[in-house]
């Protein structure tokens, strides 16, 4: 998993988890509080509805009672009950009484259930309906009363009056319609409706009040249903959800951006370090981990830089050791081969010496006799020389960045390396190994001259000049001459390599003032040699 992905997950967890927890908590708290409020309101509305129904039942009973009391005093009604010629009055009586008492249903029945007068359905007179009073004997009930326009639901009660020897049953009620249910509704968010037997059940019912229900001459149970469509609560929940979703989205976006930014801030330097480290190789130690950061990445860069520097130093030492080992082996081999080549010569020469001392006159024949041996030995040595010459590596000239080679110089601990490399330093076409040997030999001599402490400064210029200066002990002219005339190592090698490149070498040194070696790859050095004692080749 990438560092960026880890950062993103970390940011997401840190930012989103508390937010999601908050959302869940707020939503649950809101649910609990609103549900508690709803339960309280539902309980209140249920109580109010029960009270209203009881009051309505009482009202119906009171109105029937007033009719019951007034009925025996109506002489015209008595006449109408006895005189068929006055029957119209009887038939219209219930309608008149119903309107006067504010009832929506009124039926006058004789003892056997024959309808004498009906207010809500005038022309249903003479119909037999004994079941209704019987079912209403238990108290108030909802009745599906017949009307000319269809059934009408009423909350009905029963009463009776006696006129002479006739017992008149009164069935009256108040319509239970949308207006009635609307009056029961005291809460704007709750609704009261009526569920009759056979009605499909609603899923938003919070309370119900059973009530007797008479329909088709049978008694059943209807329910006044209190429900809340929950749209308000749902809308609130949805609103909260939307806000939290938006907050989560914003936090997620912010976390992503933050993770990307942080990953870029941390990851890019790490990626650069990784890329630089990947380029690192024993043959290519010119990788630099220079940084100005003061954070962990800066520390890591500096550690890597120090590591590379130690690696360079170790590599130099290792190469030097290898070179010396190789040179030693080669020297031993060459010595051995030369000795092998010289041995016949030595023997022949001893033979000549012996002949010259014992029999000088035989020297010529002996020479002629041993000349083949001499020629063979010389031929052997010549072949040996050619063969060793073949061991010298030949490389194709390449375009070389002298600055890059200069950067690969490593110095041991205690020695400070200063690079003043001009980016405009032109590239040269040469053997890169030769150039590297030039620089490394000069630097190695300088480090040797400085001992345990000092500063090595490498400078390049746009004119193609390379200068390596140390703060070592410096050399006298004699010492300098011996250095150039040494046994094939050090400045003598440098001189040969510089000569091979058609460049110039200048050494400026004095005891106690250090040494400055200048190599001009193209033309002469563009700066004068500041102090005497210099030597140019």
């Amino acid at each position, binding site marked *: 998993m990438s560092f960026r992905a880890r950062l993103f997950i970390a940011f997401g967890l840190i930012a989103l988890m508390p937010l999601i927890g908050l959302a869940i908590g707020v939503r649950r708290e809101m649910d609990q509080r609103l549900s508690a409020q709803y339960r309280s309101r539902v309980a209140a509305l249920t109580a109010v509805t029960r009270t209203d129904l009881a009051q309505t039942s009482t009202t119906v009973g009171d109105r029937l009672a007033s009719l019951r009391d007034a009925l025996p005093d109506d002489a015209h009604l008595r006449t109408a009950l006895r005189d068929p010629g006055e*029957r*119209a009055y009887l*038939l*219209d009586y219930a309608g008149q009484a119903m309107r006067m008492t504010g009832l929506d249903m009124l039926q006058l029945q004789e003892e056997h259930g024959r309808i004498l007068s*009906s207010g809500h*359905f*005038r*022309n*249903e*007179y*003479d*119909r037999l309906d004994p079941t209704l009073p019987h079912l209403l004997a238990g108290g108030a009930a909802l009745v599906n009363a*017949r009307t*000319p326009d*269809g059934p009408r639901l009423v909350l009905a009660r029963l009463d009776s009056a006696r006129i002479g020897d006739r017992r008149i049953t009164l069935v009256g009620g108040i319509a239970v319609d949308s207006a009635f249910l609307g009056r029961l509704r005291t809460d704007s968010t709750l609704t009261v409706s009526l569920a009759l037997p056979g009605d499909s059940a609603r899923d938003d019912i919070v309370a119900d009040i059973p009530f007797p229900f008479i329909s088709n001459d049978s008694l059943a149970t209807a329910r006044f249903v209190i429900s809340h469509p929950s749209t308000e609560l749902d809308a609130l929940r949805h609103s909260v959800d939307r806000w939290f979703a938006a907050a989560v989205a914003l936090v997620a976006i912010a976390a992503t951006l933050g993770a990307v930014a942080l990953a870029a801030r941390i990851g890019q330097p790490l990626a650069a370090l990784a890329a630089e480290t990947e380029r690192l190789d024993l043959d290519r130690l010119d990788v630099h981990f220079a940084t100005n950061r003061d954070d962990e990445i800066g520390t890591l860069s500096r550690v890597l830089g120090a590591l590379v520097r130690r690696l360079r130093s170790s590599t130099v030492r290792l190469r030097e050791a290898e070179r010396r080992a190789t040179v030693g082996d080669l020297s031993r081999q060459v010595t051995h081969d030369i000795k092998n080549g010289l041995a016949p010569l030595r023997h022949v020469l001893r033979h000549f010496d012996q002949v010259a001392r014992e029999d000088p006159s035989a020297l010529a024949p002996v020479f002629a006799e041993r000349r083949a041996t001499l020629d063979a030995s010389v031929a052997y040595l010549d072949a040996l020389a050619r063969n060793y010459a073949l061991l010298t590596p030949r490389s194709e000239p390449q375009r070389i960045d002298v600055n890059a080679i200069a950067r690969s110089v490593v110095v041991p601990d205690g020695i400070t390396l200063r690079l003043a490399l001009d980016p405009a330093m032109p590239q040269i076409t040469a053997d890169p190994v030769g150039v590297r040997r030039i620089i490394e030999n000069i630097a190695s001599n300088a480090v040797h001259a400085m001992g345990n402490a000092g500063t090595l400064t490498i400078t390049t210029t746009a004119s193609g000049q390379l200068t390596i200066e140390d703060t070592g002990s410096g050399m006298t002219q004699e010492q300098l001459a011996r250095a150039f005339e040494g046994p094939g190592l050090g400045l003598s090698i440098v001189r040969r390599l510089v000569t091979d490149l058609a460049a110039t070498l200048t050494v400026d040194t004095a005891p106690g003032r250090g040494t400055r070696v200048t190599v001009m790859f193209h033309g002469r050095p563009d700066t004068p040699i500041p102090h005497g004692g210099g030597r140019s080749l």
Partner: protein
Amino acid sequence: MCVLACGHAVTPAASPVSVILAGPTIAADSLHIAATDSFGVVLAQHLAPGANVRVVSNRGALDFIDGAGDVVVTDRPSVIRYATSRSDFATLPLPWDRQYALVSAGTPPTPDVLNAVHAEARIPRAACADVFDGPMRPITYMAGDSIARSIAERFVGTGLATSAIPLGHAAFDQALAGEGHQWYLVTRPAGNDTCAFGALKAQPLIETRSELIVRRGAVGVVADTTGSMRLETTP
């Protein structure tokens, strides 16, 4: 002086006014006339050609009598009773002019409808077979005819019809011209004893009549030898 009439049907019945003659001496525009239904309006217009007859409700008829009304044509018993109780008004029954009949494809049973209507009504002389051999049907009537509505509700109230359906004039005529899937309450001239109504069967249910209520001293009523009546203004 003024005259008034009271009514049930939106569309006047076809018939009865031949027995009512307008008096030549009456000044129609000087009478205040009202009727409680369109039948009464037609009657009143024949009594006083050219008169402006107002159509009023029951209460309107009572208010008309209490006001400056001169003539009221109505079949409403409550109005007639009230006028009878007033010594300054005379009530004169007009001839039986309307018959309500049940028209159907079969011969459904008929309930007692005499007491079902708020009108002066009688049982028709004619009676048709009453052998029902089919299912109950909705009963339709002309919307606005309160007598027809009461009869229809009586059918429903006694369980002889499934429902009462009021129809407008055009819809009623169209339904009546159909195949008799329903029962229909139609009005026709009183005394019609025909038991057929086109391809359908008719059962006369009731006959009704209106009464003429006139203010004493303002309007005179003269009956001629044919039974027709004539309004006359007093000199």
